[in-house]
């Protein structure tokens, strides 16, 4: 199985970019890839239940559906802890498929040969 890392820095502040990142992430999952979306900077908010629910971009499914398809098919969400803490979010309440992971596992994943895209 090949690996794909998608680096995402936005959430509600840029719905188009955020939604398209998960459209591509789902294309990766559908192609049988091991896909990780690294949520950092504003994107950490997507790991909090409910905060992705009203994000949408014209021409695409709502982000909530894209996220559910992604995690429901084995996609992983890695959440940057310092970015999360800096926004005063509840670290004991993440959505399914999300877990805390910082730069070291990202580097390891890339060193293992993961391709990467950044949004």
């Amino acid at each position, binding site marked *: 199985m090949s690996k794909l890392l998608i680096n995402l820095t936005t959430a509600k502040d840029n719905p188009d970019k955020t939604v398209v990142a998960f459209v591509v992430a789902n294309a990766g999952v559908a192609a049988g890839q091991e896909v990780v979306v690294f949520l950092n900077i504003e994107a950490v908010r997507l790991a909090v239940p409910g905060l992705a629910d009203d994000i949408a971009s014209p021409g695409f499914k709502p982000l909530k559906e894209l996220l559910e398809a992604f995690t429901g098919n084995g996609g992983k969400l890695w959440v940057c*802890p310092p970015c999360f803490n800096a926004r005063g979010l509840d670290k004991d309440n993440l959505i399914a498929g999300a*877990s805390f992971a910082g730069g*070291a*596992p990202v580097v390891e994943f890339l060193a293992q040969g993961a391709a990467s895209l950044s949004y």
Partner: protein
Amino acid sequence: MTVEADDSLDAGEQGCGELVMLIFEKMKSLAPGRTLLVAAYDAAAEVDIAAWCRTTGNDLLAQDTHARPKRFWIRKRV
């Protein structure tokens, strides 16, 4: 769980790249084969430190993730 350590590092609340950079810098002062005890509060400390050890070839001898701070014993690669 405890393992004898030759030196220690209090990483406090540091996480992500800052946590492993602290460990990287501290490990420079240790001789190969010596063990560093790292104390860290970061939510992903166990994920990040394990990945850093695998990537760098250092040995994560033991960890206690139930303690606060969490504790990690890392032996510098020979």
